[in-house]
């Protein structure tokens, strides 16, 4: 007669079970309540509104130029945004943030996971520029006392 009962479940198996359970609940909640308020398109427009007027007054290709001169926080932009400016006369490029968004911007109709962008053509100070700004910033849940 087997008096030992069932074999004890390993710690790894136990954690795996918890992770599967948590994933199911989190998935269910996100399906039911949706993915939240998608602000990225408005944010991309805001970033464009901060960038383009600055291009009229400041040379982005001058030595030592920083987006801080346009009142944009470089640290925030570098994490989940892109500011890309190309001078058409010599194809010189300036960018801050995630350069790959330049490609992902054109795929944004394929999935909500891709960034939302605003692209424009600007004539300023005798030059023509291509400007692409994009954002994929999501809000984050953090511990709070």
């Amino acid at each position, binding site marked *: 007669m087997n008096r030992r009962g069932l074999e*004890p479940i390993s710690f790894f198996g*136990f954690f795996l079970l*918890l992770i599967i359970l*948590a994933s199911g*609940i*989190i998935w269910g*909640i996100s399906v039911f*309540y949706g993915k*939240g*308020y998608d*602000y990225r398109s*408005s*944010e991309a427009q*805001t*970033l464009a*509104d*901060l960038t383009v007027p600055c291009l009229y007054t400041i040379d982005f290709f001058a030595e030592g130029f920083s987006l*801080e001169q346009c*009142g*944009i*926080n470089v*640290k*925030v*932009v570098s*994490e989940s*945004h892109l500011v890309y400016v190309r001078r058409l006369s010599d194809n010189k490029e300036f960018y801050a943030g995630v350069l790959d968004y330049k490609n992902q911007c054109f795929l944004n109709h394929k999935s909500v996971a891709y960034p939302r962008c605003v692209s424009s053509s600007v004539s300023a100070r005798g030059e023509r520029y291509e400007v692409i700004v994009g954002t994929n*910033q999501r*809000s*984050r*849940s*953090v*511990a*709070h*006392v």
Partner: protein
Amino acid sequence: MNKRGDFDNVATREFLYLVVFLAFFIILLLYVRGYTQQAVLWEDYYAKQLAHLIDGSLPDTTITMDVTQATRIAHATGKRYSDIFSIDNENKQISVSLRPGAATRFSYLSNKTVLDPQIKLLSGGIDKNTFVFHIA
């Protein structure tokens, strides 16, 4: 054969599993509760709206935002009103917390400084409340 030792090992292991499971259950319960009270959704909304207002404002502007819904949820979750909104001028981050132990954080883009952020409870209740701050 040391049957007592076996029992202690099994009891310790079972106790450990129980503690881990209870911790997991409580965290999950708080997570689900945050959604069912819609605290998470409104935190997300207010954080992004505040970022929008800050980025779109001119210097030396005082902004007043209706936060009645936020105070209603905070009242239900037992959150202190003074802890709902916090703005980190150094890292350009907005935190909105409508549930115990957690908050939603979002960054604004511009280098503006937010001064004197405070919730004003009009008529002393939760019927119409505002969040007032000044952009330097």
